[in-house]
């Protein structure tokens, strides 16, 4: 039972990242490997500024502001990435876009390495140090907030996609960008929306994952992003609810692997889950189309 609770709470954190992956995939048909590193870079900056003060201003932001900085910087990086890198790639083969996001992840991680060194960054929780006990599992504050936020984001996106005009425009763009453009859908705005909100979600995820997983390392978030990718592949790359459920499954399986099997077995289990899903049901549990 304790593993189930811990697993679900890690799964919720992965889900926050997975939702970003799905948003980008749904809107632009690009699979983003950079989803972890974009927000992580923002959180790194937040930590650095909280520690040493913002350059030129000299103001030390309070601890909870590290989360806000991660969100804002993540969104900004998403904006820049979309405008400079991803938009020229829209009509190119999907593998090109994947390689581009891989380059972005590499660049951000190496920049973190250059700026902050290889040592694990101690990451104090942005949402306080309280914890709760649930069925024998101890959940620290960032995990609890992660679960709440994942649920909130899922609800908000559901409303957005089904009830708002822009959300419907996003759906149209996914179906056929050319036709959508001809029908007057602001396709470029849809792309920008996807990347900026994915960047912000990545920032939230980094700020919550860092503290609850024992600090931040360059490339560390790419590993988390892989779990999120695994979750979204299992649930279906174009389904928000699928990605959340998939991420929860990954979290739980991993928690059981960690608790009951040798070291490293959890990552083997994740590999196995992804493989079985892709071989048996390439669309994922709730997806409509398979990534090709």
């Amino acid at each position: 039972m304790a593993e189930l609770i811990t697993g679900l709470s890690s799964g919720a954190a992965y889900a926050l990242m997975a939702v970003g992956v799905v948003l980008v995939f749904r809107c632009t048909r690009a699979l983003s490997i950079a989803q972890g590193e974009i927000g992580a870079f923002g959180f790194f900056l937040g930590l650095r500024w909280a520690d040493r003060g913002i350059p030129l201003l000299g103001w030390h932001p309070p601890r909870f502001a590290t989360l806000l900085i991660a969100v804002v910087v993540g969104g900004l990086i998403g904006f820049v990435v979309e405008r400079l890198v991803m938009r020229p790639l829209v009509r190119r083969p999907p593998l090109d876009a994947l390689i581009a996001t891989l380059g972005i992840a590499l660049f951000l991680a190496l920049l973190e390495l250059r700026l902050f060194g290889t040592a694990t960054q101690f990451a104090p929780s942005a949402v306080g140090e309280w914890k709760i006990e649930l069925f024998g599992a101890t959940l620290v504050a960032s995990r609890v907030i992660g679960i709440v936020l994942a649920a909130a984001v899922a609800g908000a996106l559901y409303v957005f996609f089904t009830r708002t005009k822009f959300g419907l425009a996003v759906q149209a763009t996914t179906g056929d960008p050319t036709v959508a453009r001809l029908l007057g859908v602001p396709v470029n705005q849809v792309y920008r929306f996807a990347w900026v909100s994915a960047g912000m979600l990545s920032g939230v995820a980094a700020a919550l994952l860092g503290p609850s997983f024992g600090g931040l390392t360059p490339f560390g978030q790419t590993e988390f992003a892989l779990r999120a990718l695994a979750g979204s592949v299992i649930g279906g790359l174009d389904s928000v609810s699928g990605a959340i459920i998939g991420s929860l499954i990954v979290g739980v399986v991993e928690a059981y692997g960690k608790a009951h099997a040798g070291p490293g077995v959890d990552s083997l289990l994740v590999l196995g889950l992804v493989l079985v899903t892709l071989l048996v049901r390439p669309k994922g549990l709730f997806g409509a189309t398979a990534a090709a």
Partner: protein
Amino acid sequence: MPLRRPEFEQAWERLSTWLRDPARAAITVGLAAALLAPAFPGVRSSTLNILAGVAAIAIAALGLDVLVGRTGQLSLAHAAFAGVGAFATIGVGGRGAPWPLALLAGVIATALVATIAGLPALRIRGLQVAIVTLALQLAAEKFVYPDDDLTGASLALDRPALLSSPKALYFFAIACVAGVLVLRRRLGVTRGGRALLAVRDIELRATAFGVEPAAAKLGAYTLSGAITGLAGAILAFKESPGAISDTSPFALLQSLLLVAIVVVGGAGSGAGIVLAALFLNGVPQIFTGFGRDAPLLSALLLVAAVVLQPAGVGGFLTAISQRLRRRAGERPDPRPRLVDLGAADASAAALRDVPRGLSLRMPAPALLEATDVSVRYGGVTALVDVSLEVRTGEIVGLIGANGAGKSTFFNAASGFAPTTGSIRYRNVELLEQPAARRTSFGLARTFQDMGLVRAETVRENVLLAQTWLAKYPAAAGLLALGATLSTERDLRRRADAALELFGLDHLAEERLGDLPYGTMRIVEIASAVAAGPDLLLLDEATAGLGPEESQALGDRFLALREELGLTLVVIEHHVPLIARVCDWCYCLESGALIADGRPNEVTADARVIESFLGRSAAATGGRKR
């Protein structure tokens, strides 16, 4: 004795044509520079050690590119594959085996692991392969690397006496790079490499040439793994004596940097990739001044390359090569030449006498006999109980409106559609034979929307179509063993004969996709003919051709029957052409046969006019009267 002028000029001419390909020139100059490098002043043995490592990275990238360039799949686990090579080398060599054996163990172990890793790729594709290999890389890091028994970290690999000095190791590594480049070149000119290009670009149609897609893909993983395993073995020897304590050369970061090298160098370009490896991996280690920022630069270059120059350094080399050729005035007329068909005897003779997958002596009333053939896709019926026959030496026309089931019939005969009923060819039931086998019986076809690889040259495509005639094993082809060289020479001769027969010989080296559509269609027919069929199925051969070209093609149909003894089934919309060349004609409507007979009878049939020719044609006829 002084060199006689003509000989000298001839040699110079040869050398300059050979070097006109910038990729070749880069490799030649680079290899010369690499061999002379140790003699340069200021090159210390530590530099040579670094360069040996760079050579290993280049080899790993060349291995990765066998997948990226040839199959269009991206692996993010190649650093882990190199790790397997290193660990296996240490595991065998560290237990006292002689070093060549240890090296071989590294190569074979990695080839095996890569082949197993390639199994899922038979079902999944593109982005999914990338995700799975990413998960594989991380699983290897978490599960294998910390385990000293698996990595051989508890063993110590002795430095082989032959490779004891940095200079010796350096020359060994350079020799390996050269060997891998030769291997990749062999892949390009033999059946294995051609099959991969076909699987990459026209996977579902590759079987029409006798290509087995699954075997080809797994072969690519095996070869890619073997090459990358060699890189791992070199890295293991570089760290010897002793064990590999640092697994960072086999970590995710390195996998991503390998992808960067391949993309910046240009997928498919050996010269480009070696240059990129030298620049991205070697320069920062040797000129340590900007050392810490170098990986950042790699990442930036990777992103810039994807966005601005997807063909990488290799793309530049190709562009230079094209410009040189253009300047030399070698831009040929993109249309087929007119061929005097009577005088093309020699070409025709070269295309006859092809061995068959079945005996030609079997008595058969008809060459092709279809009985009650039906094709259903789920709930949609594309063909209903069609029975028709094609006699030896006939040219049979297949007409009907769009969607009548003409191409579906071709798909049924060549094994591309779920078919019931019976299609007998020379009395052999085709529906019981795998699609890739049917070509060897003497059945060739073209596709309505082109079943060729546009990114390749005209000659490569004609060679690809002859895959079933290349009887040597793909692996033997890589090493030029057995009958490889003589077979390839024969295939080339056949290809050139087919191109000559269709007046395409001046276009042999042109990229297919650069040619006008009409010419591409002729190339496809030439390819099908080169495969040495008895029965040729042509799907809308005249689509995209002008009236004169269609006329000429009609003459060619007759000549194919005359000179090569071919039997033809043609799907056609051009009624005058049918009337001129066909002996018999079938008309389909909504998947069912509605008329058959001599062409003039069929085109006069009321139902055919109603269904296929339509009222406008009837009206035109009326106006003439």
